[in-house]
């Protein structure tokens, strides 16, 4: 694939991206959210049409109109959610649409025998007459792979194939991938787990902002390097140029402990801990899938999680976000459209949604008071809108975000959980929002700020907590923070401070073993982190 471009209304998703994969090669694509990975593979597998660029498959120019055409040409995709029919048998799933026939009737015997043969090529032994739904996810994935190779696939695309597998299942998958490789099939492998790339991939393509940033053999690349390239940073690069709207990092006296979450366990969480005091901004860093969003949602009572949650020293047990809101918490989510705005409602309604109980007597909304508050916040945050009655989805991303911030600010909260507060927001509004967060913390608000942008973390946060695979692996005071140290912790998770602070030495060997198994190589090469905050 060469010079691929793709534009969606208002967004350039791909801007001259390239991908070269050789037969028998396992090729990783990595990049942050929105880097264009999935768009690129969706163009390759026919789900999207490209706007520009060329695709050569075995030297021949191709242009797939739909996924079926791509499959017939030998490009198969195995998605995160498995696209098979759960109640049909394994064999039926493998040969669906191409069932062997005799005298016009389904030749079930041949179908079962052939299915068995394909699976055995993968080293998987299952009864092909069982319904697919009776298999676990890992085996279902094997069936999906069997289906792909039985169509004589030349390229198999795997999108986050290990996201729901345990370590042993991952090993089996890797064995299968190596088998595909030995048969000359190319595998395109998308994963956020860097360790896996070393275990199974030959080359890696790094994407950022719709462009291909780099393409190289995985063997020579260090994890920190990969992370740096994904984020668009150079190792050793120190930028303190005031590009963000944050000004008072580290100058605020931190107050009482507002929330203390220890050893959170749950979906994507495996021992995450974080503490936020009043009057401080805690930056929560980590790669995609490291559990950042899950930490915020657990602290807010949005998802169930086990672990110890204390609010102002007292144990808290949230049944729903309502309880957390009553305790003075607010959460601005990562995806404003999915779980932030109520699209058809006006700016006024969206802004005061959380404040309605406070704004009403006997369930009747005090419209005059509501208007006053809305006008005040439109003015104070400089929300650009035609008026309070304008529908929120007509506003720009930055202004929507301001409305959502105001949704909490009008409740005079003590803690804000901000998940990617400036994502998808233009530069000007971004600095404004950062300045606002800064000012709020000056005035005693506790802020937990999740960000994929290193500057935001290093320039904005008084304290930085780094997550990796659902676990808190490092914590830095502002004085010790640099983009390098944060990136290093995101990539390796090796950190003296975390170990010392937690005192949970028991977990270390376990982690080391898992890392060794899945990477096939030692990951003990550790840079020394500067001393932690406490």
């Amino acid at each position, binding site marked *: 694939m060469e010079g691929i471009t793709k534009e969606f209304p208002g967004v350039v998703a791909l801007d001259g991206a390239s991908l070269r994969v050789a037969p028998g090669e396992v090729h990783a694509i990595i990049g942050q959210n929105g880097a264009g990975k999935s768009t690129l593979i969706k163009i390759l597998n026919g789900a999207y049409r490209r706007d520009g660029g060329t695709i050569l498959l075995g030297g021949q120019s191709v242009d797939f109109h739909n996924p079926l055409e791509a499959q017939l040409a030998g490009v198969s995709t195995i998605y995160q959610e498995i696209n098979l029919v759960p109640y049909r048998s394994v064999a039926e799933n493998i040969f669906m649409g191409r069932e062997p026939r005799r005298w016009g009737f389904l030749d079930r015997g041949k179908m079962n025998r052939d299915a068995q043969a394909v699976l055995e090529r993968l080293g998987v032994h299952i009864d092909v007459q069982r319904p697919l739904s009776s298999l676990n996810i890992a085996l279902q994935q094997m069936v999906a792979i069997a289906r792909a190779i039985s169509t004589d696939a030349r390229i198999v695309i795997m999108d986050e194939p290990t996201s729901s597998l345990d370590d042993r299942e991952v090993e089996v998958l890797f064995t299968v991938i190596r088998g595909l490789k030995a048969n000359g099939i190319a595998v395109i492998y998308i994963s956020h787990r860097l360790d896996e790339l070393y275990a199974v991939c030959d080359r890696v393509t790094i994407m950022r902002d719709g462009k291909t940033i780099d393409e190289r053999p995985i063997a020579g690349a260090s994890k920190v390097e990969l992370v740096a390239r994904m984020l668009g940073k150079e190792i050793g690069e120190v930028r303190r140029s005031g590009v963000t709207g944050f000004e008072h990092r580290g100058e605020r006296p931190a107050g009482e402990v507002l929330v203390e979450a220890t050893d959170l366990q749950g979906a994507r969480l495996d021992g995450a801990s974080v503490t936020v005091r009043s009057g401080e901004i805690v930056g929560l860093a980590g790669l995609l899938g490291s559990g950042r969003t899950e930490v915020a949602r657990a602290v807010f009572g949005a998802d169930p999680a086990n672990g110890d949650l204390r609010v102002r020293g007292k144990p808290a047990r949230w049944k729903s976000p309502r309880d957390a809101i009553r305790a003075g918490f607010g959460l601005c989510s990562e995806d404003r459209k*999915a779980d932030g705005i109520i699209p058809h409602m006006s700016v006024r309604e969206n802004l005061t949604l959380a404040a309605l109980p406070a704004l*009403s007597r006997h369930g009747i909304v005090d419209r005059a008071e509501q208007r006053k508050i809305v006008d005040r916040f439109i003015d104070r945050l400089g929300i650009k809108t035609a008026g309070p009655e304008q529908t929120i989805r007509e506003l720009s991303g930055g202004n929507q975000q301001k409305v959502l911030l105001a949704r909490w600010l009008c409740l005079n909260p003590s803690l804000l959980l901000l998940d990617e507060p400036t994502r998808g927001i233009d530069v000007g509004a971004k600095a404004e929002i950062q300045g606002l967060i800064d000012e709020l913390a000056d005035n005693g608000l506790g802020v937990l700020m999740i960000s994929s942008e290193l500057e935001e973390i290093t320039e904005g946060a008084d304290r930085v907590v780094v997550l990796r695979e659902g676990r808190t692996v490092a914590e830095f005071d502002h004085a010790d923070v640099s983009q390098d140290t944060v990136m290093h912790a995101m990539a390796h998770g090796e950190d003296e401070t975390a170990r010392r602070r937690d005192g949970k030495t028991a977990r270390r060997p376990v982690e080391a073993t898992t890392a060794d198994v899945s990477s096939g190589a030692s990951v003990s090469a550790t840079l020394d982190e500067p001393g932690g905050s406490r």
Partner: protein
Amino acid sequence: MSQSAGQTVSRPVLPSRPATSGLPGFVRTYSSLVALAALIIFNIVFTPNFLTAGAFNANMTQVATIVIVAVGMTFVIATGGIDLSVGSLMAIAGVLAPMFLLDAQQFGAPAVGLALAIVAPLIATTLLGAFNGTLVTKVGLQPIIATLVLYLGGRGIAQLLVNGELRELRNLGSPLISSFEFIGLGQVFGVRFQIIIMLVVVVVAMWVLRATTFGRYVLATGGNPAAARLAGVPVNRVKMTVYCISGFLAGVAGLVVVAINRSSDPHQVGQYMELDAIAAVAVGGTPLSGGRATILGTFIGAMIIQLLRFTLIAHNIPDGITRMVIAGAVVVAVLAQRLRSS
């Protein structure tokens, strides 16, 4: 139309964005009102005796029960749900009321019997609404399946309660019965009492949707449940409540029907009502996807469907064609809605 249209969210018949397509803005915005006006004018010109008290009363009597049920349906649909059980709940209310009326002597004072004949069916249908709500919120069934349970089973309950028999009220002639019949046939200042019930339901519902916290929660829940939950909206409680409201209003409509007919037939009361109500909501401009709702629109939508039916019957059009025309009206209304929101 303009930013000054204060209640844009509660009345999406008046969208806040300017009209963008070629259609005249007025027609686009008030398409349902325009359709209603056209029907009325057509009837004034072509239907003999349309402008008589008799025709007016006939139409309003028939539309009242549809409107009452459709208002409840509007709340449910506004949360992104649907309630198929309303017709069956009407039947249950319809068979419960006579049971208390006919056995009134058991309750000592006749007034107690009358009160029970009204209150008990309403409590029953509200609780059955809560049952729907529980299936949706606690069990997590899709609303269409959850309410299908009582759509199918509810009429069965009604039939079992009276062994499938028709209960006649008219032959009894007790003062109790005539008091009960006031619900359907009585008049206040020359206006049928059921029309007053309908108007009260419409006005209260409009106010609830627009001015109360609950009303805003209903629209937030339908507009984006995930976001609403994160903003502290008690999403499950809101859903539960709308199904209770729908059950309660179905009960009211059931009582009205029994009072008008002076009889209660568990097979007939409320039959096809769920479909009429959903059609009224759709024609009125409330999108079935939730998040937006217009009570006034539902009222107008019910009037349009009733007048269409009346017009076709008055002109001796066969029933089959009547049904097809109403189906066509629903399609046109939904298409008009799509044009408006795109």
